[in-house]
């Protein structure tokens, strides 16, 4: 009986190690992997900005309730802070991806500001729908530019 239990435990440990092995394989060491790692956070940031744009456009066309838009923007803010936290945690391996990280951080900060303005506008705090929509669009373009450079670097 004990023998069978030991065998089961070994099998479980083996399974876990296999899974971890696969997981660790993606540690960052080459520029390609560095670009992919940064791209993950940038994608999260651009997802958040895209969602914010959608929510604001829907509110301006009164296709959604203010409460729903406000919650959506709050959650986009959460996603953006997650993305910038991921970026600040990243340790660049050389000058080039240090520059990528700074561009990404700058674009994400711009997005955070745009989303904050949108929330203020939704809460009736001032600013115009069109102005806020434009701010989000600029932030989205900035993020797209950064992910463009990362993609090109990743493709080499």
């Amino acid at each position, binding site marked *: 009986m004990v023998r069978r239990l030991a065998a089961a435990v070994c099998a479980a440990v083996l*399974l*876990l190690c*296999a*899974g*971890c092995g*696969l*997981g660790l394989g993606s540690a960052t060491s080459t520029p390609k992997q560095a670009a992919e790692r940064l791209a*993950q956070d940038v*994608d*999260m940031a*651009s*997802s958040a900005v*895209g*969602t914010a744009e*959608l*929510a604001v456009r*829907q509110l301006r066309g*009164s*296709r*959604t*309730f203010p*409460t*729903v838009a*406000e*919650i*959506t923007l709050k*959650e986009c803010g*959460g*996603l953006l802070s997650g993305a910038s936290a991921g970026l600040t945690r990243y340790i660049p391996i050389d000058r080039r991806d240090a520059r990528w990280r700074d561009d990404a951080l700058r674009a994400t900060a711009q997005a955070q500001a745009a989303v904050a303005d949108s929330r203020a506008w939704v809460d009736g705090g001032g600013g115009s729908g069109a102005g806020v929509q434009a701010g989000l669009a600029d932030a989205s373009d900035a993020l797209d530019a950064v992910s463009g450079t990362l993609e090109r670097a990743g493709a080499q």
Partner: protein
Amino acid sequence: MKRLLGVALGVLTAIGGFLDIGDLVTNAVVGSRFGMSLTWAVLLGVVGICLFAQMAGRVTAVSGRATFEIIRERLGPRASGTNLVASFLINLLTLTAEIGGVALALQLASSVEPRLWIPVAAFAVWVVVWRAKFEVLEDVTGLLGLTLLVFAVSVVLLDPDWAHLAHTAAAPQIPATEGAASYFYYAIALFGAAMTPYEVFFFSSGAVEEKWGPKDISQSRINVLVGFPLGGLLSLSIAACATLVFLPQQIEVSTLSQVVLPVAEAGGKLALAFVLVGIVAATFGASLETTLSAGYTIAQFFGWSWGKFRRPSQAPGFHVVMIACLLVGAGVLMTDVDPVRVTEFSVVFSAVALPLTYLPILLVANDPEYMGDQVNGRVLNGLALVFLVLILAASLAAIPLMIATGAGA
């Protein structure tokens, strides 16, 4: 009247059980990242749950014994003990996610902090489980849950290119931006979301609550064949909505508020009102089901008196377990853990634990001592064996894939 109530059980199990926070989130995430290329996983899950729930309902209707009594009888204390621990913990995880889902849905409808909604939602679930009749509990959440049909309406309103949608569903390939590991990880997540064990505990114990006998087997088959495909259809329409709105703009879904955006995009405020009601009903219905399933598994394993058809004083252990689970679930949620993340883990662990419940039910469904002459036919056994292999494969692959993809990151 009894037949109508019977069908209500089927519809509730489809909407409440099928469409819970796990389906809402997983299908939206999959739609936004993989388009319709994982449709096959949802369809497999629908056929699987139809087969599994129908067998469990038939076994209970004929033998009068619910799922976990059977698991204990057939596997003995050691194997069924580990089975209980695994099934109970995963059910608790799903319960936590469901109550979190109710809180998130109420936040969307009222913009009040979800942390304030959590104790209210947990208390409301307890009051319904404590007082309401089993049938009433089903009808209300079942019928309200039907409002989720608005997802299907939204797909039509978004005026998609149906040929393209059908093509990507029929001829699936892994999108360039995603790795094979995360593709199959989400296939398992969808399969687990469709075939959650708590649905079967609830469905088979419900057969005892409703006092079904062998004559109700055809009724249970209707419930399953009406209820679950309806759930599968709604799952696919959630994924389609996400595909149409989010995929082109490369927006990845990770919050509940994003799940409802396509509906607002398609139908404006009216559709949004419907979907908010539907999500609250589905997550609340699922919270009731997971709470009851927690009570059912423990009480049936230890042989206590259980069931909502009895006075709480006649099933004290059953009710104490449910109260404890609600307190634990609400407690965990108050630590500001993200219910969507909890949900993603709960569906994958459901897939891991599925064989533990599926095999005993399959064995008993062939045991004349329990089933008399209502044993499985040859065709059903063949299909059941195919799914046994599928379920074992998904269960074994789930954890390594979860680690390899960092839980689908």
